[in-house]
């Protein structure tokens, strides 16, 4: 008990001395140490984050959304009372999910277009189940206690590519074209702050605040951005997909808003995904 009081007094004295440092001309050594700590902090911070990331990933609430997605995928739903399991081809054949996510975006002959995972699921929900595209786009992102069905479905689909190599095809001319267009959109600067995607994601080893910014033009950077999505976001405690990630990047880029599951987003996901080809996808993850 005595010991505890001692510690408390010491702590109080310390915090008082910090307050003094902030207000008055300080003594040299203390200020120098403080400055040094401020400069050193980022690396230590990153190391500490990574140590506990494994702990967080081990029990990831994303699993709860995967379970919900499974239910939705298998159930007969929509005006047509059809299940996605019996109708939707994610690129590996109707109902086949193994490895589908790590090969998307890809070209689909039935629509003569390249589609990313979420866009393809949305397409199937409209075409086979009879849902309305406008309804899917009305409130497409998780917030509060609301999780769109498409988010759970995408998480479920992604879960079937756990520990598989990313192998996004670049054979069809439209697949190649989509990649190149994505590359251009990535570099396109506009808006009041003159930002493009590459303003933040075009250089190695940079951070916003304490968040590391992967350089998406390199394989190492691209996998870090591909990895972990769909992801359970600690901020707000909600599940998000890459569709949301792109949307929120454009918000921070001070752009107008991209349409939900639009070709522009597919192109950006192609660029990022193809750059990550050959790397192993860990499955739905956890994000800051």
């Amino acid at each position, binding site marked *: 008990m005595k010991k505890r009081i001692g510690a408390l007094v010491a702590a109080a004295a310390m915090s008082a001395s910090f307050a003094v440092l902030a207000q008055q001309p300080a003594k040299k050594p203390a200020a120098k140490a403080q400055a040094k700590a*401020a400069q050193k902090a*980022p690396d230590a911070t990153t190391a500490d984050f990574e140590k506990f990331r494994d702990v967080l990933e081990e029990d990831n609430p994303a699993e709860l959304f995967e379970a919900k997605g499974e239910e939705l995928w298998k159930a007969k739903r929509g005006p047509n009372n059809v299940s996605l399991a019996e109708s939707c081809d994610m690129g590996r054949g109707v109902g086949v999910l193994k490895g589908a996510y790590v090969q998307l975006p890809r070209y689909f002959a039935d629509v003569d277009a390249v589609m990313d995972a979420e866009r393809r699921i949305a397409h199937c929900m409209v075409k086979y189940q009879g849902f309305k595209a406008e309804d899917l786009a009305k409130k497409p992102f998780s917030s509060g206690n609301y999780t769109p069905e498409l988010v759970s479905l995408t998480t479920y689909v992604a879960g079937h590519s756990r520990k598989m190599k990313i192998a996004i095809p670049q054979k069809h001319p439209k697949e190649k074209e989509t990649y190149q267009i994505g590359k251009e959109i990535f570099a396109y600067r506009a808006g*009041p702050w*003159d930002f*493009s995607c590459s303003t933040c994601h075009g250089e190695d080893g940079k951070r*916003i*605040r304490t968040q590391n*910014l992967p350089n998406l033009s390199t394989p190492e950077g691209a996998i870090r951005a591909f990895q972990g999505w769909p992801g359970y976001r600690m901020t707000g405690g909600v599940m998000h997909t890459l569709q949301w990630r792109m949307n929120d990047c454009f918000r921070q880029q001070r752009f107008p808003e991209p*349409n939900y599951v639009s070709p522009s987003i597919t192109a950006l996901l192609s660029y990022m995904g193809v750059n990550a080809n050959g790397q192993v996808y860990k499955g739905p993850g956890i994000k800051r």
Partner: protein
Amino acid sequence: MKTQKITLFCAAALLAAGFARAGDYRSQAIALIKQDFHPRGIATADRIHEEGLQAVCNRTSDNPPAAIAERLQKDQFDAIKWPSDGKFMGGDWKKGEKIAQSGQGMAWNNKPGQENGGSCYNCHQIGPKETSFGTLGPSLYQFGKVRGYGEDIQKYVWGKIWNAKATNLCSQMPRMGHSGTLTEKQIKDLVALLLDPNSPVNKE
């Protein structure tokens, strides 16, 4: 003002012609962006159009020919609004710190007329107390202490915050005054944060 605009436009047009060959995917990309983005809140549709300087940087991978860069940079510099009372100093570094901390402003979720932040810590180390700072830009810690407090530095800092493109045409840094993000008063507070000898940035 009018002349400047015309200058910019001509330069962009010239460049566009010169670099058209590499621009096939580029024009497809721009067409797609125009088709796929919708205005939301204060983020109006016109924001997706490249403005002159942006177009030049976009078309040259941020590396325009020196002759053009020099001219455009001068245009940017000439458009800087200097403090109306002629004084760079006199701002409040404490308010400056708050502005530097805030990442609010200009996004579609921000309200019209709300006070914007400078997002400075997103990219720069500034005060010694804030350990959560970005590294997209150089560290500004001990800015005045290292570079001095003279009027030339004051003017440089003011100009850099008002329009970073006036000293480095394709700089990654937003043009905080030019874009209407920060007010003259806010910029003065930020200058104080970096150059007031009593600001924690400079106090040893």
